[in-house]
């Protein structure tokens, strides 16, 4: 099955918001459709992210959200593939691959250095998918630190 990939605009907000909420629940957050919707509304209105929605006919199957960023060392644009979600009944249908392909096309179209993403150490199916798509783990070279604000 080849899903249709749409670039999300305000017209698709009500379609993508429930998927985004389900994605957050998968990451152990409490469901909050209103806040999830408003977050996406702001990102779309301010052009602060690019969201792709995979559909089969009218049925939404999954989405990916990318944030524009930069690589100082290479003085190039860089996309952060922050979110990727496929509804449970559409898994195994290569919807994730199609969404990642679209993200890679965005990176090519914008002359970006590439696409960066983070995934949990325990998300083995995600890691397999990313490695199949050509992503390389960087933990042999780099480590990440964070500080709560």
């Amino acid at each position, binding site marked *: 099955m080849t899903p249709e990939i749409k670039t999300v605009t305000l017209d698709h907000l009500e379609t993508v918001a429930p998927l*985004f909420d389900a*994605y*957050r629940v998968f*990451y152990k*957050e409490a469901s909050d459709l209103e*806040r*999830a919707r408003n*977050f996406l509304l702001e*990102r779309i209105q301010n052009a*602060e*992210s690019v969201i792709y929605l995979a559909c089969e006919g009218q049925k939404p199957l999954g989405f990916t*959200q990318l*944030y524009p*960023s*930069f690589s*100082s*060392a*290479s*003085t190039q644009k860089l996309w*952060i593939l*922050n*979110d990727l979600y496929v509804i449970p009944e559409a898994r195994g249908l290569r919807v994730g691959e199609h969404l990642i392909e679209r993200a*890679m096309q965005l*990176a*090519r179209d914008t002359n*970006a*250095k*590439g*696409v*960066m*993403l*983070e*995934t*949990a*150490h325990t998300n083995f199916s995600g*890691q397999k998918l*990313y*490695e199949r*798509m*050509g*992503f*390389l*783990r*960087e*933990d*042999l*070279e*780099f*480590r*990440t*630190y*964070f*500080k*709560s*604000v």
Partner: protein
Amino acid sequence: MNKPVQTLQATLEHLDDLVPLFDAYRVFYKQISDLGAAREYLQARLERDECTVFLAYDETRAVGFTLLYNTFTSVILKPLVILNDLYVIPDVRGSRIGERLIERGMAHAKLVGAAFLRLRTANDNLSGQKLYERSGFVRDEVFLTYNLKLEEQS
């Protein structure tokens, strides 16, 4: 005793001070020195408000900078700030200038309502790791970072 150091948020007016430091930082990361490209890049980012830069000065010259990019963390619906670059010129290291710049970065993250300040550093950058840990950063043990580099794709 250390010379007094001041920090300020860089604007386009500080490009002449910032560019050589940014170039030296890129050379440290195995890039070829290119002052023109560095200037063009920083000017574009600052003009479009796509980064935030803090500069440190001692009595005579600019001695270090940090450059931050704003982004978001979708899962918790909040901004996130990436402390992407930090550089202090070699002959003034050990004077806590890095700490001062990180504090400015932290204040910026608070200002934009970010949940986290995040950074990546090379595994072999032991002095950087010590500095970050001293400044309250914790190593991320939960997530793996993956990169897809377009020029490596056939």
